[in-house]
């Protein structure tokens, strides 16, 4: 996590990225605004920054840290859920064995 945080101290961006650059070249707009734009007021941390205040390096570092923790926890829970039934199978077999033993 410390290494991860140290990486995020680096300047966050230095220009539009690949897809954004292509859209810019082809439309001439800095931000390609489609017609049926949806209003996104609900996101907790829109655009990798806090909704209030200016974005500084410290803020983007903090957002990265929060995002990283959210991602790791979310992923761990997701993997646990995916593998849930497999984990509970031995318990079932033990219960069955106990049942058969008691029947004997």
């Amino acid at each position, binding site marked *: 996590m410390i290494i991860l945080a140290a990486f995020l101290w680096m300047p966050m961006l*230095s220009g539009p990225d690949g897809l954004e650059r292509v859209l810019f070249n082809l439309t001439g707009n800095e931000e390609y605004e489609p017609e049926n734009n949806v209003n996104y007021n609900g996101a907790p941390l829109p655009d990798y920054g806090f909704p209030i205040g200016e974005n500084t390096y410290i803020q983007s570092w903090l957002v*990265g840290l929060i995002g990283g923790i959210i991602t790791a926890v979310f992923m761990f829970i997701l*993997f646990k859920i995916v593998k849930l039934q497999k984990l509970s199978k031995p318990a079932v077999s033990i219960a069955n064995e106990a049942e058969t033993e008691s029947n004997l």
Partner: protein
Amino acid sequence: MIITHIGDGLLNLWILIPLWIGVFAYGAFCLVKIRRNMKDEQLPIASVLTAVVFAFQMLNFPIAAGTSGHFLGFVLLAILISPSAAFLMITAVLTIQAFIFLDGGVLALGANIFNMTMAVLPGYFLYWVIRKRMGKTTVDGKFQDKGLLIGAFVGSYMSLISASFICGIEIGLSTLFPPPMALTIPLMVGYHALIAIGEAMITTFVVAFFHKWAPEYIPDIREVPVWS
């Protein structure tokens, strides 16, 4: 504004729906594979790696002509865990980015997941073939893993090329975005050919780091089938 993924309103619905169906079909396949193959001791490292990929995706590195690129990470995760786990991990990262960080549209999430996981698979297959072919078993029974780093470099480079090619087709097909496919594909592939150098360097560096200091985290290629 940092837009690193396709937003809502860039692609038509008739492009998005087949992509969503493809993502769900491949996702079901991946869940079965994960339940069958993934070991419990891999869960913590997989979660942390997902967070690392999330952080790397936030980090834009500059390339030529005022453009910057950012990391994708599918091939890295596929090398270290498995492609089906990498699908779930990239999907989780993209979902978190869409819902919490406003990066990429919610309707367009299917297209983003498709581009960053399924469209990237040719790169992983290339890595697999290179590593399988170049690895040799010596006379005394030791396995020489010569193709690991070369495969990681070439595979991650080609993964970005194939992803940007497919993304170019999608944007070109869309009637909501006026320029035709003849313009979008060369531009997308052209810029991403440069970004892919950074992607390949990061992937190779991380894989080399694991190979040197924690080789037990890299699965043995002799035991890894193509679809795993």
